[in-house]
């Protein structure tokens, strides 16, 4: 189960995720980003209520980061200790901007 809340303010888009970002739910996030990303220069993820990220989730984050590198910035906020560890182990801490 993944719940995505969107909040768009001009060219800034904030996506608040709650639940699990895994093989089953990652395509849902991918589509959401694809549909909304045109004209966005600032993409923010809020992970306050996100409990779990698997490699399928990382794939979507990496591809979002690649897109945003071409046209603006991407930030991930409020990352739990457990998810931070996943980012550390996979080198994502160095790729993503985590606040």
């Amino acid at each position, binding site marked *: 189960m993944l719940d995505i809340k969107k909040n768009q303010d001009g060219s800034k888009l904030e996506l608040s995720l709650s639940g699990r970002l*895994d093989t*089953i739910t990652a395509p849902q996030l991918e589509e959401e980003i694809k549909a909304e990303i045109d004209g966005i220069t600032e993409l923010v993820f809020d992970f306050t209520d996100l*409990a*779990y990220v698997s*490699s399928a989730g990382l794939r979507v984050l*990496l591809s979002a980061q690649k897109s945003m590198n071409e046209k603006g910035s991407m930030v991930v906020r409020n990352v739990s200790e457990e998810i931070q560890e996943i980012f550390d182990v*996979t080198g994502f801490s160095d790729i993503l901007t985590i606040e």
Partner: protein
Amino acid sequence: MNAVWENDTIRLTLEGRIDSGNSADVESEIIEAIGDRTPGSVALDAERLEYISSAGLRIILRLRKRYPSLKVMNLSAEVYEVFEMTGFTEMMEVSKAYRVVSIEGCEEIGRGANGSIYRIDKDNVVKVYNNPDALEDIQHEREVARLALILGIPTAISYDVVRVGDSYGSVFEMLNAESFSKILATEPDKFEWCVEEYVDMLKRIHDTAVPAGKLPDMRETVISWAEFMQDYLPEGPAKKLLAMVEAVPHDDHMIHGDYHTKNLELQDDEVLLIDMDTLAVGNPVFELGSMFNAYVGFSELDHEIIKKFQGFDFETASRFWRRTLECYLGTTDDDVIRSVEDKARIIGYTRLIRRSIRRGGLEDPARKAEIDHWTEELIELLGKTDTLLFERNSSGDKRRDELDIEAVEENLSEVIAFVDKKLEAVGCSMKSQMQIDLAVEEIFVNIAKYAYNPDKGRAIVRVEVSEEPIQVKITFIDHGKPYDPLAKDDPDISLSADDRPIGGLGIFMAKQSMDDISYEYKDGSNILTLTKNI
């Protein structure tokens, strides 16, 4: 007001409404009815009480001060709620009026030492107690069921007490449940599954430590049986029996006391233990003794008995008992099984003999013959057995379970839920659970994507937990194309976002989050094993 004295007990009938308008009158009427006598107890019969206000409750409080033995009985559900909300039910004896339930034409689905269980409708069953004055038994059973539930044993707790004919019953919610006896009788191909679930629950009961003083000690009960037998066995065997029972050390682990397949229910996918009134603590040999009786002892001389009681035949019962011992003990070694069975038979026959003698069996020739047979067996067993203690093979202690499921991505949630349930049962931390979930997801999704592509096939997910230190071992087995996911090189995690390929991280993450991952291809199966200490 109607007031009736019975010896030194006075019963006063409350009627209609008690509120600020009449509470003072009610109070003085009660005091007047009791007069100068000192009642042993005062019972207020509230069957026809429709309403009580706080003014009414206040007079009950005052009366209770004056007559400490005051109790209120036969309250309607509505008025009872007022007493419950205000805390009166905690303070004094307050009892509800009992709903009347008929069991005529209802199916008997269970039977225990102290009562029988009937299904009264689709969602409810009632346990009717043999003892007509069963309110204390009901209270006891409710307390022990609650205790068992808190200690992690899945059971049903009754939510209502009812009148059934001249006796009492407790009502349980039990949706579409089926007893294991019925499954064994009607679905013979589920025999092995029944044994596994039955033994799992048995181990779970025997592995549950109970706080001191909460349950009766079965050792004391069995000592009293052995003492009884002193007058009915030759001196040598009699003394040996008592000495062997006394040599069984105190054990604070739970035993059910009447563990047979009518007391295990399948409700949806959940296995529930019922009929908890015999719950005790003690050495498992005492449990095996009553189990031997349930499957073999009671019906050894008349095979029709088991058919009537359990619905399956004596051959099935004996086979079930034997397989249960094998699984419970974790061995198929015939000598080991027989030696443990002998210990169970000693307890079982002792109980049967005592029971029959106490019910006048010695005066009835047919039953005397049974007693003689059991006694002969018992003496022979006592001759070749020196201890009632036995060991369960430690590999039998592992909590093991497996899921056989179609390997498709859509089933991931089910696989994760299955694994998490096992992990939660052993108190795994959230962090370890997430790390294990990660690895399980990667491996299962890998199988779903590649093993049978473009066809479909199944995967087995097996979870084993061993204790001290707690180690979780998860094995994935599929019969797809040989493929070692561990053979791939680890990704370079130092590359920048733009240089990194999308994907390829899954197996790497699984490796990072587990203590060990191994792969082998054997007999046409891919076998991948994850191990983690938690």
